């Protein structure tokens, strides 16, 4: 396809940690993201899910070149972001924006809504006329469902849902092509969460945005994504189209995650079976050998402890990193 905007190849971000005193210090390496690859088209939404510590936020930062990868490439419209000098990278950032998790913490409490939303404009176009800024700010405020006459207010005068709308307005003011949303609704109440998910969906359609939507909540991701990537301990376990992922997951971890989501229906909730998962996620300092999921996988065999499964393409066009993907039938709704 020629409207591909981003291509990520074998991306890895490792952090070095030091432990112990001066004399006996040891360095550990945390492989926060380890060999992730995917493509993103214009107007597409890629959902990224996983439990805490799986590396999804680090991946988000690496996509925007906010952390340096130790391996692999992020190609934006064919250009490797990490090969650009600072000024060229800064220009690229016009096209890429981020929306953060905690809407109140992400807004400067001492700035008015106008200044918060206009800040990217001033940064990129320092000579822009004040009238033009105001016009643009009022325009995006309307677009995200805020009243343009609230332009002089401060963040504390808004509810959490409205603050997230301000955060989205700030991300959209430069007309970006890509918006990375890092857990944009997990701090919000359900009724407000639904408003924000719908807003993002509408805006995406209207503006032909590419969205990377990071969340731990599988049901929210299902409502917004075209494709979904499931991460575990820094690695992609599965990358599938939304419908096939939720109906017929290919990876045992995906299936366990889906089964663990509580259903808001008393009869179904009580009839739910086991997830098949045991224990906690292992420490990322000391991940299991072979397939990182083997220590918790109900289908693990000897090979899984030794050989790291590659993310490979199945006939359906979906991707999975599991040695046993062909033999397992993980269709949701079937027992066993």
């Amino acid at each position, binding site marked *: 396809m020629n409207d591909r905007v981003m291509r990520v190849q074998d991306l890895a971000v490792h952090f070095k940690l030091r432990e112990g005193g001066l004399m006996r210090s040891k360095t550990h390496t945390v492989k926060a993201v380890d060999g992730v690859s995917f493509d993103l088209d214009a107007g597409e939404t890629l959902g990224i899910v996983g*439990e*805490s510590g799986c590396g999804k936020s680090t991946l988000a930062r690496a996509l925007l070149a906010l952390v340096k990868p130790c391996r692999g490439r992020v190609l934006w419209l064919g250009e490797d972001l990490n090969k650009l000098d600072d000024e060229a990278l800064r220009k690229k950032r016009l096209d890429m924006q981020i929306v953060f998790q905690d809407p109140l913490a992400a807004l400067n409490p001492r700035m008015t809504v106008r200044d918060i939303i206009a800040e990217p404009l001033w940064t990129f176009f320092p000579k822009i006329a004040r009238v033009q800024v105001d016009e643009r700010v009022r325009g995006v405020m309307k677009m995200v469902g805020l009243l343009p006459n609230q332009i002089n207010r401060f963040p504390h005068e808004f*509810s*959490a*849902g*409205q603050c997230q709308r301000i955060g989205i307005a700030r991300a959209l003011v430069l007309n970006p092509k890509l918006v990375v949303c890092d857990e944009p609704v997990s701090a919000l*109440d*359900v*009724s*407000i*969460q*639904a*408003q924000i*998910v*719908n807003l993002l*969906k*509408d805006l995406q359609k209207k503006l032909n945005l590419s969205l990377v939507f990071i969340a*731990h*909540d*599988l*049901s*929210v991701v*299902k*409502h917004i994504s075209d494709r979904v990537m499931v991460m575990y301990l820094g690695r992609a376990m599965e990358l599938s189209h*939304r419908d096939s992922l*939720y109906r017929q997951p290919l990876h045992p971890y995906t299936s*366990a*995650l*889906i089964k*663990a*989501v*509580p*259903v*808001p*229906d*008393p009869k*179904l*909730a*009580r009839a*739910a079976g086991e*997830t098949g*998962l*045991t*224990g*906690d*996620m292992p420490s990322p300092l000391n991940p299991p050998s072979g397939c990182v999921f083997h220590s918790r996988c109900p289908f693990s065999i000897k090979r899984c402890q030794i050989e790291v499964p590659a993310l490979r393409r199945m006939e359906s066009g979906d991707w999975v990193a599991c040695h046993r993907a062909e033999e397992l039938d993980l269709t949701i709704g079937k027992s066993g």
Partner: protein
Amino acid sequence: MPLLEIKDLDVGFDTPEGEVHAVNNLNFSIEAGDTLALVGESGSGKTQSVMGILGLLAENGHVTGQALFKGKDMLQMSTAELNQHRGNEIAMIFQDPMTSLNPYLPIDRQMIEVIVHHKGMKKAEAVAQAVEILRAVHIPDPERIIRQFPHELSGGMRQKVMVAMGLLGEPELLIADEPTAALDVTVQVQVTRLMSALREKSNTAIILISHDLGIVAGLCDRVLVMYAGEAVECGSVNQIYYDPKHPYTQGLLKSVPRLDQPEDGGLETIAGNPPNLLALPGGCKFRDRCPSAFDACSEKPPMQLDEDRHAFRCFLGAEE
């Protein structure tokens, strides 16, 4: 006699901007072995109502009404009297496992405090019992874990320790404030299973405070829905989920994204934002966001009760 009966509970806070009415005229009761969910959005008064009952309000808070635990009013008790019940017959699992454990003390010291104090148990015996309960909540290698400090454990482990502490004294009433909110889905399942196991084993009554309608559906018998400090609907879990009467409950259920339903089209939403507790509107508090509001809603609707103990605070829905 119910285990705990709450009558006309009001909780307010004095703030520089005026009085915040966190809980208004709340009534409910719970029997031994029952599970009751308090459901509602942030600021609806779920947590502050139980904090009021247990005498744990912040200094600028005040509480009126009655909270009868086995017939005795907890709101009239002295701190010394309260302490005979709290932690012993009534245990609470607090919301945030990061801040509710003492970072300076190893897990064993914190866990056995309750049983040593209330049951007069010897230390060694208490530690042995604590190890057993940690094993029951599926903590691997409990003999080692119990000597560690909170910061050495993961968030999921800490929350399991909190649950284990709640269960240790085999309380008659367990109040769990969002016990799973900080946990990943796969750990959530484990924690809710534990709580239902406890209830079956020791006939413990559970009050679960949660905004997660999925967790509530799986664990609770009865549900009390709160909005802006008031109870708006109360009934059995089936009544609330399959036949909700209050427009707020209906909206809340519809706005939950679900895995088992088609995702085409947008999510249903409740328009607007929750009201400011400093300046609550008169009449029905949900009026401004309600799709079916009409003239009568400027008066405060009374709590209506149908023949199956299904109560709701709305003018609509009584007679179709």
